């Protein structure tokens, strides 16, 4: 190092001041970059990561923004985020309503990823969890309105597992059945085909990143019926038979409906044994 004699203290002071100024400037910039990166962690609702993507916190550390996944997607659904978009610059995503994931059996996007930001452990595309479909709008879903649209149900690549149609009485007409599409999170891959196909102006069913779409029970919750099944029987005292408080002389049995105990006005000839008698037809049996 140079050994100067006279102006050394002044020079040193200036050097220190300069260094401090520079360190502060760079430090502030770093703070800005860090905060910006933090903000970009919350994936916006419309942006879905490709199959096998690590959880967002790990993904932003593992993905080197190379776009190999984008290139190897045969359906060209993936994009790299531009700087002005609200997710980490350069990271891959797709927008289900524009072009959903076609769930390639050989998962080329995952194979192409050189870093493992798309987890190479994913071998079965049906196990991927890109997001989760949610039937967000019960007011505009055509099946909720009583139609048999069923499109989301039918286009779903995991048909009858990820979306099922659950019959329900149409309370409005009183005589029809609604077939309510119900999404099952253990099978939904989040590919977005349902959102893409929903024929309404704005999709009634939408795919969201998992963190938005999925709830979670508190860890101490137990589902009684599940526990009972596991244990092979009631976990507490033996089940007590349930009794209804019925008017004098009437009983209610699940599946059979109301019946009267009182000896009815003499069972007439042709009555089938076992069937409730003497009641209006509507009251026999549990269903209308």
């Amino acid at each position, binding site marked *: 190092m140079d050994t100067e004699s006279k102006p050394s203290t002044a020079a040193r002071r200036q050097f220190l001041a*300069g260094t401090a100024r*520079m*360190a502060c*400037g*760079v*430090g502030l*910039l*770093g703070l800005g*970059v*860090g905060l*910006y*990166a*933090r903000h*970009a*962690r919350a994936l916006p609702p419309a942006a879905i990561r490709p199959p096998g993507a690590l959880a967002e*916190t*790990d993904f*932003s*550390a*593992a*993905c*080197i*923004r*190379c*776009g*190999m996944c*984008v*290139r*190897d997607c045969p359906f060209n659904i993936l*994009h*790299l985020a*531009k*700087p*002005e*978009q609200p997710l*980490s*610059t*350069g990271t891959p995503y797709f927008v289900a309503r524009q072009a959903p994931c076609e769930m390639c059996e050989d998962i080329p996007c995952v194979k192409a*990823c*050189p*870093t*493992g*930001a798309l987890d*190479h452990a994913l071998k079965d595309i049906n196990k991927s969890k890109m997001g989760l479909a949610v039937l967000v709008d019960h007011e505009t879903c055509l099946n909720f309105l009583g139609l048999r649209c069923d499109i989301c149900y039918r286009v779903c690549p995991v048909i009858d597992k990820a979306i099922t149609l659950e019959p329900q009485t149409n309370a409005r007409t009183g005589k029809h059945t609604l077939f309510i599409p119900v999404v099952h999170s253990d099978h939904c891959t989040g590919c977005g085909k349902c959102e893409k196909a929903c024929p309404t102006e704005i999709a009634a069913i939408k795919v969201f990143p998992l963190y938005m779409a999925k709830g979670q029970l508190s860890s101490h919750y137990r589902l009684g019926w599940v526990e009972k099944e596991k244990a092979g029987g009631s976990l507490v005292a033996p089940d007590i038979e349930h009794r209804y408080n019925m008017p004098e002389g009437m009983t209610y049995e699940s599946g059979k409906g109301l019946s009267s105990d009182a000896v009815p006005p003499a069972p007439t000839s042709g009555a089938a044994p076992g069937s409730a008698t003497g009641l209006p037809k509507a009251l026999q049996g549990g269903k209308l």
Partner: protein
Amino acid sequence: MSAPAKPILRPGAEAIAAKGWLAAHKWLLLRRASQLGILLLFLLGPWFGIWIVKGNLNFSYTLNVLPLADPYVIAQSLLARQVPEKLALTGAAIVLLLYLLVGGRAYCSWVCPVNLVTDFAYWLRVRLGLKGSAHISRPTRYWMLGMTLVVATVTGSIAWEMVNPVSMAHRGLIFGMGLAWAVLLAVFLFDLFVMRHGWCGHLCPVGAFYSLIGSFSLTRVKLPARSACNDCMDCFAVCPEPQVIRPALKAIDGAPPVILETNCTNCGRCIDICSKDVFAFGTRFNSTVVPVAGVASAAPK
């Protein structure tokens, strides 16, 4: 966007007179060919459907056999506590070896797309006779480098990639620009009006990272004929890192006639511009003139 191949006003006149225009621009032309050629290789796929190279400068796969990865971005990923798969690590190792061979900051002058922008800004600055420059010291880039590594560690994400003009430019050209052009314009205007060689010479952490590789790299600019120097100062005028020349040229502290300072970008412009052919490419070893201890260190201004 490409920088011009016109003679820079004053510096170079002598060299052109002595060697002819072509010889006085040889390395510059080769360098532009390399920068644009590499860019074109990347663009052949998306533009013409000819897939020789896929990806971008952060990771690319050539003909599905040659992985190349940017060791700087891989380093950030590691600091953010993610260990990449083998392919990316192999790619980073290959790139590391490559630059150990050709010189660390050869990345800057032969590959980086931002260099086209900042070279153009500098050319225009000279053309327009813009004087005056803000003062930020050159080592600031190492603080920037340190900052990006610290931010990666603290946030657990490759945060710098969100704002890095270098990868933004390259990715933008290949995958769609978006507003990345605004960032590039900012770099251009900064270099043009605010600070001479501002971005590449003082701030860019990518360049700083590659300069560290340059501490060990084989290919270096030598000065086999340094005694022929007639002090025309043309090399200082064209060099993007003029401080690297002095120790080797003037044998400061008995420095050997080879530019060991890591921020020399191996652009070869000094070789072109010198009418006395003082400079030539060579290796860091066997520098003939007086073997003196004490490697050339960062030069005074």
